């Protein structure tokens, strides 16, 4: 068992510590992304012409390889978690902004008209009506963002010691300790699955007004599939190991 969980000392973390670091580096950017995406989406919903340029900019940023991002940021933020988290925050925007904008736009025009007619101002309507009704779409975006972020953190191994489980994978390779590689890959996959499950649970709790059950799950899955951006990214859970391998090579 020890061959799987004895961490090389250069990682400076226990196994549990690595998991904590990995989650922090993966999920804080998604949280920041959400905090940035919400006001952006509000502006986009008020001024619809604003959405196209926002989408264009986030997509272009998404197309920048993470390595290039890191190299640029190294000069400013050095070998730190910040260097890893900034690109991940930017990447999450390309999933979250469309999820929120499209989700709120998909609210039935009847509902929007009814709210307006009842004297909702546009901000109040966005917060109290459009956003809550868009929760399923937003959660679909959030799940993608979280899972892809968990897979991408490992890339941080390239720039030093901030790749968390990615560094474990790297060590496994350079020290020829295959069990460590397996530990890293399996742990990353399990993290992605668990986080995704928790988000699904959160959605169920947040939307008591939705018909639940298999039908709802299938609908959410379809929404998620639609929200997936055109640029191919290894965002899906079972692609995580592959992403890790690619990143390290």
């Amino acid at each position, binding site marked *: 068992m020890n061959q799987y969980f004895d961490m090389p000392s250069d990682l400076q973390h226990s196994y549990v510590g690595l998991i904590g670091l990995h989650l922090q580096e993966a999920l804080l950017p998604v949280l920041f992304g959400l905090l940035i995406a919400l006001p952006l989406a509000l502006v986009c919903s008020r001024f619809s012409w604003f959405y196209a340029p926002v989408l264009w900019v986030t997509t272009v940023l998404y197309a920048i390889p993470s390595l290039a991002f890191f190299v640029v940021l190294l000069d400013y933020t050095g070998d730190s978690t910040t260097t890893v988290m900034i690109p991940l925050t930017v990447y999450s925007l390309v999933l979250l902004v469309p999820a929120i904008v499209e989700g709120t736009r998909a609210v*039935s025009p009847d509902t929007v008209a*009814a*709210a*307006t007619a009842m*004297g*909702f101002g546009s901000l109040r309507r966005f917060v109290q009506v459009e956003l809550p009704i868009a929760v399923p779409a937003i959660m679909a975006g959030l799940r993608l963002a979280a899972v892809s972020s968990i897979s991408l953190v490992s890339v941080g191994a390239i720039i030093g010691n901030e790749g968390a489980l990615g560094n474990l994978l790297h060590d496994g390779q350079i020290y020829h300790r295959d069990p460590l590689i397996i530990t890293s890959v399996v742990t990353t996959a399990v993290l992605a699955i668990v986080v995704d499950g928790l988000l699904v649970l959160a959605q169920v709790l947040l939307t008591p*007004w939705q*018909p639940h059950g298999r039908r709802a799950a299938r609908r959410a899955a379809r929404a998620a599939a639609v929200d997936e951006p055109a640029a191919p990214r290894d965002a899906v859970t079972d692609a995580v190991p592959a992403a890790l391998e690619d990143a390290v090579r």
Partner: protein
Amino acid sequence: MIRIESVTKRYADGTVAVDDLTLDIPDGSITVLVGPSGCGKTTTLRMINRMIEPSGGRILLDGQDLAQQPVTALRRSMGYVIQNAGLFQHRTIVDNIATVPRMLGWDRGRARERARELMDRVGLDATLAKRYPYQLSGGQQQRVGVARALAADPPVLLMDEPFSAVDPIVRKGLQAELLRIQSELGKTIVFVTHDIDEAIKLGNMIAVMRTGGHLAQYAPPDELLSAPADAFVEDFLGTDRGIRRLSFFTSAGLDVTATPIVTADADAAQIAERTLPELPYLLVTDADGKPLGWAKAEDLAPRTDAGDGASTEDGASTADLLPHGRPFVLGQDSLRDALDCAVLSPTGWAVAVDGTGKVVGVTSQETIATAIRGAHAGRATKPAEPDADAPDAADTSAAGPAQAPATDGPAPDAPDGDADAPVKAAR
């Protein structure tokens, strides 16, 4: 009163949705905007609560220009009901209804209490309060929509095709409910529909609009049916407007006779005495005077003569009776209902009952036709010479016991002339 003054709406793309529309919408009654799709009904309605701003002209509410009033306060003083209800799917039914009171600063408890009160008023079961909209039928959702619009007790109610997405039976129920609520609350209601029958059923005043946002005619339903302004309106009204117009003529004063009516145990003498020369049938009633059915005089007579076997024979004869069809309530139902009963009756005679269902008399198609001619003549001359009630007087002179309310020509039509919600409710 809402006064729409030479209002024009031109959208950004140049579409003229409403063109120089002038309309006075009276207080406390239902005004219906009706017309084909795209004629500018929704646009007109939404200019009243300023969801759309007019490009020309102005709209006055009780003499005040709407453009001068703060838009949110204005909207909260006007209930708004739309097709498919537009409920907030993420809120429970009570919270949907409590929306405007909550925005007006009521505390949650009071707002919810008010919401429950309104659920009762619109005929929603209290057990639905905690449900979410997806758990309700379309008809129930519409009721919630109406309750939500009424929540803050606004003086004005704007309704945009509120009942067009439900099936005809549910729609009928909702229409009746609206009339009932209106008879209790007396709101100023502006109601949009493309269904002329709905317009005639609900409207105290009807504005017929034509494509391009022009007003084709603005009149009470009765006048619309009797004197369409032009070919467009006439066409829009459909083919049977003559028959439909009869629903504005009361059956009060209709000549009914109680002669050919017997109870099940009548003897031969009674039967002979009560048989009318022009009607070979007798209406058989039970001991309470409720109608059982029609019987031929000669079929009825021998059986009731049969002495001690009478009661069993009666049972058999009741089963042999011809159905009496749906009776009409004299004085409450319209001449259209009376005529319908007569047309559907196997004997050609309609059965008139009172409010409790007891037979007050029967009447023939010919008598109803005479009453219709009389009513038409009374209507036609009314605007010009209010006292020209001769046809009505002639008509009612022969009337039976139910003639009392019809001593004066104009009296029967007075209630449904215009703007009287309770009469609408009774229709």
